[in-house]
Structure formats: C-alpha cells, structure tokens
C-alpha cells in the first residue's frame, strides 16, 4: 500500500485523472467560464497580427489614411476586451485553484481524522503533512492553471494554423513544416527538465534535513567530536546539489535556443517564400508581415502545451497520493446503524449518548497487530465499576495493547469487549473515547494557554472548574508561579514547560470531564522523584470512585491498586492485591525483589550499623 502510494507512473493515468475530474465537478461553472474566456483570449491573440496586416495594406502601402479613426476605435475596443479577459482569466483560475485546494485538503483532513492509530503508526507525521500541503497545492494549481494553458495553447495553435492556411495555403504549409518538430522537441525537453528539477528538489530536501540535524544535533556532535565528519558529509551533499542544479539549468538553457532556432527557420522560410510571393503579387505586404509574426508567435503555445503535459505527469504522483489518502478506509469504523443513532466522528449526536457506569469485561479477546505475532490469545478480564486495575509486565507483554483495545484505538480480532454489559461496537467510538480519561506517556499539549489546554478535555468547562481540576491534580501551585498563570502560553507541543509540568496539565485535562473510566499509561516515567511524589498524590485523588487501568514501571505507583494483573506474553500469569501477590512469591514477587533488592540491602546495612 505504501509502495503503491510512492510509485510514479510514466504515462498519464486516465482513470486517475477521471477521478480527479470528479473533485472539480462542483466547480463546473467556473471551469466553463474559464475555458470560454481562454478561447476568447487565444482568439484575440491570434487576430492581432491581422490588424497590423490590415493597417499595412490599407493605410501604409496605399498612403491613404481614410478609415484610420474607425480602425483605431476597433483596435481600442478589442484591447479593452482583451484587458477584461485577462482579468477574468486570472480571477477565475485563482478562484478555481484556491477553492479546489481548500476542498481537497478538507476531504483529506476529514479522512485523516477518522483513520485508526495503526495507520498513523506506519506513517511519519511529516509525510502526512506534506500530503496536505505541497501535494494539494501541486494538484490544485495544475488543474486550474493547466486548464488555462491547455485551452489557450490548443486554441491558439488551431487559430494560428487556420488563419495562416486561409491567408495563403502554400506559404502556410511551407512555414508550418517546423511545427511537428517543435512539438516533439518541446515535449522531450520539458520532460527532461522536470525530471532534473525533481531530482534537485529531492536533494534540496536532504540538505534541509542535514541543516536540521546539524542545528538540533549540535550539542551531540560537539560531545562526540564529529564536527569534521559532519561537514565532509554535508559538503558531499551540496556538491551533488550543485552538479544536479547545473545539469537542470543546462537542459533549460538548451531548450530555449532549440525552440528559437526552429522558429527562426519558420521566419526565414516566411521571408524567403513570402518575399517571392509579394514580388509575384500573390500576397500583400501586410500578409507577409503577418506571416512573419505568426512564425515568431506560434512557438509560445507549443511550449505551453508541452509544459502542461510534463507537469501533468509530475502532478500525477501527488494526485495518486492524495486520492489514496482520501479513499483509505479506517480499520475501525462504526456500523451504519450505530452512526445513525450516535452520530459520526465529525458529527456526533451527543444527545443520544448514554451515561457510563464503568463495568468492563474482556471476553475471549484475541488480538495481533497486522501480520505480526499474536499479542493476546483468549484474554478474559472482568472489572467492576470503580475498581483500580494495575497492569504489570515486561515490554511486549500486552499491557499497552489492553488499554489500546479498551479505548478502541484497535479492535479485537475476535472476541468481545463489553462496557456496562454491552459489546462496545454497538456504541460509537467517539462516545467511548469521550467517556474515558487518558494520561499518556507522552503528554502532548497543543499550542495555546494552559487554560485552553485543560479545557481541551471538556469544552464547556468554566474557569472555576478549570481551577478545581488543577487543584485536584496539585498543579495550581506551579501554574500560579508562572508569569501569566493560567493564561501562560505553553508553546508548540507544550515545549515551554517541563515534562513533569506537561504531565500535570495533561492530568487536569483528563480529569475535567469527570470520566467514569481512567487510563494511566506510563504517566510517571521520566519525572524526577519529588515531582513523582506530587503526581502520586494526584493519582490517588483522581482515581477515587473510577474504574481505572494503570500501567507503570515503578511499583510504588501500582501498589495501591485493587487488583494487580501480571502479564507475560499476553496471558495473565498472576493477579491479586499487592500483598496477596507478594505472599505468592511468584513473578510479581521476583520483580518486586529486583527493584528493591539493593535498596533493602542498603537499609539492612543502615539498620545494622
């Protein structure tokens, strides 16, 4: 799937573009008007040399000025129309471009909001962002300006050929000899140029990446003393960049001269054959001059058409990626009747959402991630409302999988999960997720103030409720010490705060909606000891009367749980309260010993000394 998204097809994929045309259907009217305007522009561009011809033949050669005023007025009228046309063309093409970009981007965004975590795990955020920004931009601009150039270019070419044939059939055929060669050469060069520029852009993004690493990793580079190696590597990259850019520039600088030489053959032929025709009286001076202008003029539409085709090819990759993104189906979807009753992800019907008591049951749950080994096999667990469950086990034992399943970020491959006695797929995912409070290992905050971040958990929260939530998690003290208190900006991703502070705010954010179920996923790792103590108090406060799942490395966090579940390779090997498990002298006991063994030894020393 990922490979398919990345592939770049050489030929124009008609099926794909048909699909893209569907996206432009709402703008049918704009497209029709735009095409009409472009036809008019091309028509006027094509007849302007005829006006010169008329002036030459009727006023200059005859040296008779009668009718020149009328001619001037007609000329003025035509150029006023052309001025208006040009305004209209940019206006409508701009309208089409911006409207289409916004709507395609919105479709992609909607699709992303519904996709499951497994989709996100496979794709770096940076990759997705590029789809919604640069790819969307590329696609919408090729569609709008591509229409402009395509209609103008083809109309102009047809018009010029037609006019020339009408003016003098023989002369037209002679001068148009170069046209097919011109077309072939243009398409050849435009393809080459685009390919080279794509390569240049690729290296360029590598250079940006290298600068990024060089700056962010500066401290690390210094401590490892690898500055010189870094510089050498970078210099290799810039050398490659310079070579590719020069190659691309050489292709571009070969293209224009070849086109010029070809069209000068046309001009020369027009002058030679046309000149003889004038002498023989077969054509007028005006016609000769018109022919000469047309031979200079017709390479412009040829070049535009070649460019549109080349760009269409390169935009195809972007189009493919966006469309496959929009069409990607989430692994986790609510059934139609569920959506009917409880609303979709983007349009929830909150009024129909039932309350939650907090009874949870895993029934014969079997689970594995994509094509990997199974993580859970026939997993059963029943949790009464208000019970505190701690999950203990090594990395990969299935702890995180259990809470991910509970939050319906993933769904069981087989088996059921019942909430208050009802299989949870009979409700909407938004319902479940808004009823569960989460504190994750990485407490991601959004840019904005602390207040806004806490309110994220419950949009209708009043300032007082926010303060209460902060009080409950012991965060008020540090918040009030900040320069702007609750209005302090946290920065992008919350990076202006320390990890511990972020964690406390994410706690307040989780608690403010008063959820019946609470999940703590490694919430206290990477926090220093004194902060951990504060957190510990907060946790005990928060978990009162809620069904909760706790995952932690530190056993001190787990000790107070009603039930500790020890997992190994997806199976429950022990369960019970802290003291029950210690008495059992099993796996938990060993784990406990491991953590505190040395500590106890020290203490013994202290006691005995």
């Amino acid at each position, binding site marked *: 799937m990922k490979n398919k998204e990345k592939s770049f097809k050489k030929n124009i994929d008609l099926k794909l573009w048909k699909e893209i045309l569907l996206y432009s259907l709402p703008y049918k009217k704009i497209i029709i008007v735009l095409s009409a305007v472009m036809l008019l522009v091309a028509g006027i561009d094509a007849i302007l040399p005829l006006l010169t011809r008329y002036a030459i033949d009727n006023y200059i050669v005859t040296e008779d000025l009668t009718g020149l005023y009328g001619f001037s007025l007609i000329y003025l009228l035509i150029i*006023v129309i052309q001025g208006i046309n040009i305004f209209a063309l940019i206006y409508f093409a*701009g309208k089409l471009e911006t409207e289409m970009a916004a709507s395609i981007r919105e479709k992609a965004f909607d699709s992303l909001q519904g996709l499951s975590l497994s989709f996100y795990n496979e794709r770096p955020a940076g990759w997705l962002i590029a789809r919604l920004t640069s790819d969307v931009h590329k696609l919408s601009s090729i569609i709008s300006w591509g229409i402009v150039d395509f209609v103008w270019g083809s109309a102009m070419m047809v018009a010029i050929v037609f006019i020339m044939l009408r003016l003098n059939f023989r002369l037209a055929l002679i001068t148009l000899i170069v046209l097919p060669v011109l077309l072939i050469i243009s398409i050849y060069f435009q393809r080459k140029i685009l390919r080279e520029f794509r390569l240049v852009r690729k290296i360029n993004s590598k250079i*940006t990446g290298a600068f990024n*690493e060089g700056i962010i990793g500066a401290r690390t580079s210094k*401590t490892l003393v690898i500055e010189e190696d870094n510089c050498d590597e970078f210099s290799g990259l810039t050398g490659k*960049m310079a070579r590719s850019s020069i190659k691309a520039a050489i292709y571009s600088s070969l293209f224009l001269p070849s086109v010029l030489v070809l069209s000068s053959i046309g001009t*020369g032929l027009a002058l030679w054959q046309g000149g003889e025709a004038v002498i023989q009286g077969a054509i007028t001076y005006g016609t000769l001059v018109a022919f000469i202008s047309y031979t200079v003029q017709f390479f412009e539409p040829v070049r535009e058409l070649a460019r549109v085709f080349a760009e269409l090819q390169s935009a195809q990759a972007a189009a493919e990626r966006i469309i496959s993104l929009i069409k990607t189906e989430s692994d986790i979807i609510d059934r139609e009747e569920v959506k009917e009753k409880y609303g979709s992800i983007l349009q929830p019907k909150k009024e129909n959402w039932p309350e939650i008591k907090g009874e949870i049951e895993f029934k014969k749950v079997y689970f594995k991630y994509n094509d990997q080994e199974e993580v859970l096999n026939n997993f059963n667990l029943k949790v009464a409302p208000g019970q505190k469950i701690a999950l203990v086990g090594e990395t990969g034992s299935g702890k995180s999988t259990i809470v991910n399943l509970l939050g319906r970020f993933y769904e069981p491959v087989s088996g059921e999960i019942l909430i208050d006695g009802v299989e949870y797929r009979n409700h909407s995912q938004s319902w479940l997720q808004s009823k569960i409070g*989460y504190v994750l290992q990485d407490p991601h905050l959004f840019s904005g103030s602390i207040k806004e971040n806490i309110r994220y958990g419950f949009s209708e929260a009043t300032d007082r409720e926010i303060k209460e939530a902060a009080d409950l998690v012991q965060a008020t003290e540090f918040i009030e010490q900040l320069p702007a208190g609750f209005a302090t900006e946290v920065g992008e991703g919350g990076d202006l705060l320390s990890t511990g502070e972020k964690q406390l705010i994410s706690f307040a954010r989780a608690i403010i909606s008063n959820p019946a179920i609470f999940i703590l996923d490694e919430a206290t790792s990477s926090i220093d000891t004194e902060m951990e103590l504060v957190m510990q108090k907060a946790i005990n406060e928060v978990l009162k009367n809620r069904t909760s799942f706790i995952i932690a490395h530190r056993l001190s966090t787990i000790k107070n749980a009603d039930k500790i579940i020890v997992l190994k390779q997806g199976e429950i090997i022990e369960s019970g309260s802290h003291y029950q498990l210690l008495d059992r002298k099993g796996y938990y006991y060993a784990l406990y010993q491991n953590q505190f063994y040395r500590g106890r030894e020290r203490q013994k020393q202290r006691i005995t000394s």
Partner: protein
Amino acid sequence: MTSIKLALKYMTTKNIKYLSAFIAVGLAAILMLLNPLIIKVTIDSVIGDDPLNLPTFIMNIFGDYLNRESLLQQLWLPALLILLITILRGIFLYLKGKWAAEGAEEFAKNLRDELFTHLQYLDFGYHLRKDTGDLIQRCTSDLDTIRRFLAIQLVEVGRAFFMLSVVLIIMLSLDIYMTIISLLVVPIIFIFAYVFFQKVKVAFKASDEAEARLSTMIQENLNGVQVVKAFAKQPEEKKKFVQRNNEHKDLTFHLIKLLAYYWSLSDFICFVQIGIVLIAGSFRAASGQLTLGSLVVFTTYIGMLLWPVRQTGRILTDMGKAEIAFTRINEILAEPKETYRGHGSKGQGKISGHIVVQNLSYAYEDELVLDDISFELKPGEKLGILGTTGSGKSTLTYILTRLLDYQKGSIKVDGQELKEYDRGFIRNQIGLILQEPFLFAKTIKENITIGAKEKENLIDSAVEVAQLDKVIDEFRDQYQTAVGEKGVSLSGGQKQRLAIARTLIKDTPVIIFDDSLSAVDTKTDYLIRESLSERYGDKTMIIISHRIDTLADTDQILVMDRGEIVQRGKHEKLLTESGLYSRTWKIQSQSEID
C-alpha cells in the same frame, strides 16, 4: 549592491564565468535585435524599391554582390542569415544559462558549506539560545532567495538594461519621432510594476502567514493524533481546521485578485502602446517619413521590450528581499566560532582521568549557576551527583567538556589547566552522555560508530553493556535499521541506551552520565550498571541521577542545590544526614518503609 560584491566572493572559481554570463546575455540581446533589421532591409530594399542603405563596412566587403537585382534572385540569403544569427544567439543564450548557473550554484554550495561548518563550530552558548526554525529558514529559503536572484533575476535585469539601450540607439537612427512615441509607455509600465509589487508585499506576506498557520495547525493535529482521538475531539479540530483553511483560501484569493488587476492593466497598457506605434506609424508612413520595414522594426522591438521591462519592475522589488536575506545569513556568520587549538591538539595520548576542581564559579547572564564548587576525582573513581532541576549539574558537565568556559576558579586535568587543552582533544577524552540524546537519521550501526568509525570491532561489547542487543535483535534489519523519520522511532529509554553505547565505543578515559538512564526501567538500569562496572570499571565516571540506587555505589556523592554543593560524602553517610539525599531516598523506598 554590497550583496553582489559579497556574492562574487563566494564564487571562488566561477566568478569570471558569472561575469561572462552578462556579456553573453548582452550579445544575445544584440543578436536578437538584428533579425527585425534584416527583415526591414528585405522588405524595404529588396522586395520594395528603397535604396539599399547598409552600413559602409558591409558595403565595402560585399558591395559587389549586394545589389537589389542579385538579392531578388536569392531571397533565401536573408532567410539563411536570420537562421545563422539565431543559432549564434542560441549559443550565447546557452552559455549565459550555463555560466550563470555555474556561478550561482558554486556560490550556493560555498555559502551552504560555510554556513553548515560555521553552525557546527559555533559557540555552545549560541546553540543554547538559538531558535531552530528561524535558523533553518535562514540556511534554506533565505539562501535560495539569493541564489535565484543571482542565477535568474540579476542576469535578467542586465539583459533588460542592455536591450533597452541598444534598442534606443537603433530606434533613434531610424526615426526620432517614432522612438519617442514607442518608448512613451516604458517608464510608466516600469514604475507601475515597481510600485505595484511594493504595495502587494503585504498581501503576499498575509497569504504566506496564513499558510504557515494552516500547516502548524495540521502539524499539531497529526502529531497529537493520539490525544485528539483519546478525547474524541475531532469535531473541534475540524472546526479549527476549517477556519484556518478558509482563511488561507481567502487571503490567497485576495492576492490573486490583486495580481489579476495588475496583469490585466499592464497588458492593456502594453496593447495601447503597440496600437499607438501602429497608428502613429501609419501616419508617418502615409506621409512618406517612415518605411514599411522600419514600422515592422518598431512594432517588433516594442513587443520584445515590454515584457522584460515589466519583469524588471518586479525583480527590483525582489532585490530588496535578496538584500535582507543576505543580512540575515551574515548575522549567523558573524557569530563567533569556538576556538579549538590548544594542548593535546595533535590528538595523541590519553589523559589518566585525574580531575581537580577548585573554587569553580560560573554565571549565565548575571545569574550565578555554579557557586564555588570544589572536588577531586582520582583516576578510576566514580563520582555521583544528586540535585534538583536547575541546581547546575548539567552546567558542570558542559564546563568539564569545554562546551562552556568557566570564568572563575580552576579545573586541573592531569595537572594541566582545562582551558589550555584543545577542545576536540578534551571531548575525545571525556565522554558526555546527555539526558536527551540526539540520534542522526542513519542506521543504528552508523549511529553507534559515529564518534569512532575506526573502532567498529568494539561495537558488540558496547551494545551489550548498554543492554541494547535485545532491542536490536527485535528489529527486522538489525544493525541496519534506519532511525528517525524514515525508520523506526526509538523510545526515550532506547535512545539513551544507544547514546551510552556510542560513547562507550569511543573508549574515553572519563565518562559523564548526565541523567542518561532516566528513561530506562529500573531492571535495565541495574543491568547496565552491573556490566559497566564489570567491563569498564577502570574508567573515571561522573554519574548524575535522580535514583539513589544508581548513586549508592559511587565512591563519592555530591548533593547540589542552586549551584552549590550542599552535602558530600558516601551513601551511608548521606543517609544519616537530613537533607535532599535522605529525603529522596525515603520517597523512593517508601513502600519498603511503610
């Protein structure tokens, strides 16, 4: 203009070529102007019956052949001439493109290299206060603004001025009255273009900023996808997105609308100019003051001239941008680099690891971060440090590795003052493992051997001690697994373990752990410490940690608070004193005590 002078400095080998590009573009412009003249002569004096009025030097050479009669028989001759001139012009155009690109690309390469090198060797203090996004912007898009300006725009301006002056001379020699009429609009359109693009700068900026806001919003949404989902906040996120998306759409469309006014109006002015030439020419021609051929020359020239004039107006506004970009880049280059050279700069030998710190103080922006620190560490000894956030522990490690230079007091390493050592040498002797290590977008193996490429054979031992072997085993591509955006993302603890391995492989006599096991679970932490003392027991170590367990084994422990050493001694002694150490110990072994 100063920027152009500076630009030439960076084109070390290619500046002659770059200047030649201007000559080539000038010659191409002159050649381009010749074709209409040939057409004129052909129309007027060969097909028509005006006297053949060629420059005397041509008449002197070809005079015998050049008369109307013989040319009439050989009309292919001017046609061939047109072709030959165009070929010649094509060659010059090609050379211009090639040379300008070579000059500009060499400039870009040299400046990029210099910027990168400079950033690598910049003072550590600079890196502490920098703004990454802004720096990258300067190194990439600002640099590209200048490159484009040199490769395309400046040459274009040169061409426009060249053409304008040659056209002026030719036109004047043909007809003064028509010259004035033909060039009437040129200054108007030029000023119009310049003023317009000055004015729409605001609209350009507004659209760019709206785009930045939109991408930031998308970025935050995607980076925080787990949180968005966990709180079922998609509808609210959608609302935010739609607002930004529409704002961007509207502002961009507003800009396009402004451009539509500009292009339609300026096209109209150009058409008016062509019309004026045509009509005024008809008057002149009708009264016999202008030949048909000359009229063709005037209309062709004016068509050739108007486009570059319009472009120039725009480029001149862009020139301001290039100037600003140059200043912004120069600001980086003006920052002082670290001075490296000093004792041990040959990189030979090893220190024994004897460190004596006496009365060390360090202030950062008037704030005392380290206050009168003294301690001694003998070769092979282990020193533990406990301290709250902001107690100055990390600053101490930066000073010991000469990332920061101390202001007061002395540090003696093997009896030699630390300041006198070469920075590179000392960092190869004292390995510092950071709490939040940075991994490069390379494979795991490359990341581990990055500081000691020649010691690849030590990789297994380093990886085992850091307890990284099991982690690597789980990856499909093992050591060849790519790290970062395009590969696996490692957890905080795994990153720390990799950082330990890459420092161990360097085999430095002194190793500093700056809380570099904080994200590792207790069991792994224990295993790492065990195998460290087993295999690297002879190294001098400084271990900063929040975990008492980690510190308990050390020979000496310092407890730091607000830049001062408030307690020191061994674990057992510190436990009996009241203070941060015993308090932390109590918290950590809480479950044991109650």
